[in-house]
């Protein structure tokens, strides 16, 4: 294992985060705070409790997931797309480093950023609403699992994209709608039966449900199903990445 190469990629990517602190950390925190103001205070004050918790508190796990999902994808896709765009990918491809190590460096950095961001948003939420986490270990495990899985997904998008438009397309057209419709701001039980069935096809429902369970022990689906679905998505992403490197898809001629 070329540990030094993994470390070099990881630190290089992390350095970009510190360099662009405003976009990387401050901007998501500000937008999440606005969500609390709008949904938690303005709209939430007119909604009674949801499954025993106040609306403002109820939306905290969903809001964290919203940021973690979108930032994981954005960080990882940009991380690998940018060297492709500038041409510096030649150095990664010609280095004595395995594909696994390349993924570890890029995805590790992207996931780290998302996890830090998730924790900052959690701390920010604590300023607005009272929080009590029933299962902190599960909460962290879910946070890490989601950050890693969606960073892998972002890595795939970054490899696939051959322009900045494509880089934005999947996150904007697919991921954001799925996240909003995945129960970030409501319980799936609040939907009419037909839409509830449709919602169960949305993979994000399982992530938010599982994450919310670790906070309040309330969930739309059982914890084991949530973990199972997330792991299934993780495995799918790993298989796709394995195929990308095996074939050199959009990386090697």
């Amino acid at each position: 294992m070329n540990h030094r190469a993994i470390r070099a990629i990881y630190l290089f990517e992390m350095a970009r985060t510190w360099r662009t602190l405003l976009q990387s950390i401050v901007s998501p925190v500000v937008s999440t705070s606005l969500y609390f103001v709008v949904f938690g205070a303005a709209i939430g004050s007119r909604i009674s409790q949801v499954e025993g918790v106040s609306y403002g508190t109820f939306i905290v796990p969903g809001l964290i997931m919203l940021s973690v999902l979108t930032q994981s994808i954005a960080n990882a896709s940009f991380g690998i797309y940018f060297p492709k765009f500038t041409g510096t990918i030649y150095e990664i491809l010609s280095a004595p480093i395995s594909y696994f190590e390349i993924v570890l460096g890029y995805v590790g950095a992207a996931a780290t950023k998302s996890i830090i961001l998730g924790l900052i948003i959690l701390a920010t939420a604590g300023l607005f609403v009272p929080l009590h986490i029933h299962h902190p270990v599960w909460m962290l495990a879910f946070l890490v699992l989601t950050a890693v899985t969606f960073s892998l997904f972002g890595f795939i998008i970054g490899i696939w994209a051959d322009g900045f438009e494509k880089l934005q397309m999947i996150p904007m057209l697919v991921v954001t709608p799925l996240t909003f419709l995945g129960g970030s701001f409501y319980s799936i039980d609040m939907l009419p039966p037909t839409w509830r069935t449709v919602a169960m096809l949305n993979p994000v429902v399982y992530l938010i449900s599982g994450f919310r369970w670790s906070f309040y022990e309330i969930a739309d689906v059982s914890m084991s199903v949530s973990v199972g679905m997330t792991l299934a998505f993780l495995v799918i992403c790993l298989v796709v990445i394995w195929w990308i490197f095996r074939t050199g898809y959009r990386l090697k001629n």
Partner: protein
Amino acid sequence: MSSIISVANLSKTYGSGFKALKNVNLDIKRGEIFALLGPNGAGKTTLISIICGIANPSEGKVLVGGENIQTSYRKARSLIGLVPQELHTDAFESVWATVSFSRGLFGKPKNPDHIEKVLKDLSLWDKKDNKIITLSGGMKRRVMIAKALSHEPQILFLDEPTAGVDVELRKGMWEVVRTLQQSGVTIILTTHYIEEAEEMADRIGVINKGEIVLIEDKATLMQKLGKKRLTLHLQGKLDALPESLGHYELELCDAGATLVYDYDTKGERTGITSLLGDLRTAGIRFNDLDTTQSSLEDIFVDLVRTS
């Protein structure tokens, strides 16, 4: 001298069906400067890309330092430093950070002294904290060389290293290359500048349409293929050549004021003595004469045209 790179029956066909390399065989000797010449699209960059791991071969085998580039890629690649043709650099990193990154990427432990030496050798030391985006094109080219040298490679690929670089900087780079060779680094350079190959290389390979047309020691090549030209500046202008000189294939130039005779230096007889004798017999006198030797560029153009 043993081979440090051995390319055997290497072919590359792109997805479009274009054959970029056709059964290429090539051995690079340890410690030499090898210049690979060829017109645009000849396959130079494809060949380098395959050896360095950027492109996959369709057929054939490549050994670097005795290691197969596919099955033993870690060992093979760690021996190589690559300076690609295009200026691919990180815009917002400092020179120091990007060069240090390259060293780490190749699995080498931190060595600030080595990075400092490389940057000083390439006259980049005073720019070490500058963002790359602020550097000139020539400086960026040197940063790319610094990145390639950061992990102390035994082999350095320079793909068109002086393309778009001014004369002064080009000569500076030649110095750097020579110093590297003296330290034991094997250098493979592709170039459009024949002057560069003529100045630098120990051996020359010519590639055209994906095939190696020729590999030869530079000196031998110049000797074997070099033609000389004798130019006679006549006392009086000639309207036509006398029939007695017809078998010399002379050329009358400058409206009959000069007579040009091409001869082969590798031939046992150049024909100069008899030509001069026959000129005197024909009553043709001349004021001056000069000879010129064909350059590598002439040789290269001839080879590419005939292959």
